[in-house]
């Protein structure tokens, strides 16, 4: 089996709400199956210093407090855009949580009206309504949309169900453009905007989501799906997931 090379963007600046755990989970689930796995850290600065960018088969980026997101913003827009555009459109696998999901969209309009341009890769935009609308905080659950749930690879690795569980915490509300495909449909909680029931976005094999938990610790079936897609394999050996299954079952009852 080939090797998983995880590209981890801005680990130092964007690691709020345990999202670091997503990379830890991917690594551990590969290790448990004797799949070779390595993490390549990509921080601020020129991409030319990395000579293995083309070998990355799973890209991860989290979110951070406003100050950290501001500190990577310029670099993200100027240095990383061409690479990311190429990565996503070539159908490679990626996961963008919270702040990075927002920055991958067209723009982010802050509560004072100031507009931050995004990468425009995800066809979506985010608006922060300030005090006019409450923050979207709490336990959240959603059903994966057809793109993933009907994928034979997902069916092979899924030992739970078509649903995902997590915790969300975002002030900005994201609206998908017509035609853009949501990652999931909210069954409990807010999702993208607390209005249209959509949660996240899926484009090719890249997912943008508001789910923390961390999402891959809470949803091992999704972690395995990403690993299988990244390695381009149809199935993966089973792991002993007793506690994880119990945790997933318990999370379905959280209020």
């Amino acid at each position: 089996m080939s090797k998983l090379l995880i590209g981890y963007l801005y680990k130092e600046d964007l690691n709020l709400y345990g999202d670091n755990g997503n990379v830890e989970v991917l690594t551990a689930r590969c290790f448990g199956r004797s799949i070779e796995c390595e993490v390549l850290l990509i921080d601020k600065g020129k991409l030319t210093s990395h000579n293995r960018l083309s070998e990355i088969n799973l890209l991860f980026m989290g979110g951070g407090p406003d100050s950290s997101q501001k500190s990577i913003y310029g670099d993200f827009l100027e240095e990383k855009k061409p690479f990311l555009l190429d990565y996503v459109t070539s159908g490679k696998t990626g996961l963008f949580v919270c702040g990075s999901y927002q920055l991958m969209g067209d723009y982010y309009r802050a509560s004072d009206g100031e507009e931050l341009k995004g990468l425009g890769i995800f066809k979506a935009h985010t608006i922060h309504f300030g005090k006019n609308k409450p923050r979207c905080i709490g336990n959240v659950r959603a059903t994966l949309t057809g793109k993933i749930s009907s994928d034979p690879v997902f069916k092979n690795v899924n030992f739970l169900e078509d649903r995902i569980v997590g915790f969300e915490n975002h002030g900005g509300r994201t609206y998908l453009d017509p035609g853009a495909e949501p990652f999931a449909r909210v069954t409990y909680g807010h999702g993208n905007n607390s209005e249209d029931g959509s949660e996240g976005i899926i484009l090719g094999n890249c997912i943008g989501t508001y789910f923390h938990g961390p999402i891959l610790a809470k949803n091992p079936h999704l972690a395995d799906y990403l690993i299988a897609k990244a390695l381009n394999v149809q199935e993966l050996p089973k792991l002993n997931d007793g506690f994880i299954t119990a945790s997933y079952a318990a999370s379905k009852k959280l209020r």
Partner: protein
Amino acid sequence: MLILTLLITRFLRFFIKLFGLGSGGTWPGHLALKIYPGILSDPGIAPSLGTLLISGTNGKTTTTKMLHHVLQRRGFLVITNSSGANLTNGLVSALLQGTPIFSKRRADYAVLEVDEFSLPSVLNQMRVKGVVLLNLSRDQLDRYGETDLILSRWEESLKESNVSFVVLDKSFDYFRNMFFPAGAEILDVESISEKLLQADLTSKFHIKNIKVLALSDFQAAYGRGEIINSGGVNFHLFLAKNPASLTTNLKVFEKRKSEFDALLFILNDNIPDGRDVSWIYDVDPSVIFSACKDKEIYVSGGRVYDMAVRLDYAEVFIPEENVSASVQSIMLDFRNMLVGRKIL
């Protein structure tokens, strides 16, 4: 108005105590604020020598207890909200306690721990002599939004206030860039020499907090390194509510590996704990692994399986029978469980 409020709340407190309905730490203040919303600004409830506020993410209760201890030993009459009732209602309850009615003596000082988010509104309302800002780390972000927001509110309210001194730790970047009121003296904890400190408190936060006071004899606050003996077994209680405090505790366990046999992790997600438990993944798995290695591990709490999964991913071995759900988040139940459970 103040007299009426005082009479009513004293009465309420008397009843709470009489019928064992609680400690009277929050309800009198809650009622007082309903009757007299401006009570915090009333000079009538101010202690005669001044009010000191302690705020920050980690170490509030411990520091408050220490400061209270020091002032009391110097002969002052000091009131405090030692039960951790650190929202406005808890503060008002404490201040009412120190206010004379009929012939009781007025308190000299009030030493009050204040919730990070309540600090600005408290500073805006009452005259405060000094503020101790401990630290600010990602804690209960789901309740409060982000740390940046808290910092800017602290800064704004301090600027408007007329505090005479602020104690803080300049090794934290965010304090270095903060703007303080011109008239206030800024005291840096880092400038106190370690040699002055003797207290045997184990973690980094504690040492920094001791530095705030530089004192030598002191008993740990409830749940903060407290030791309980039951049936010949010592139970050592640690409280962690964010990655920084959990990491500190785990490092203490690793350093004192020979002194304990078993570890019980209890994870909860009630509002005082923070609803989001994602933060347990912000702790380095190798730190978790080293602390737990070769020890019998137990897991419990409302989010027992999240904790078990987290330990599992850090390669900690947990026997299935050592995992059981459903423990109330309150510390008393935590204590009962430790005593009632056969750990050794």
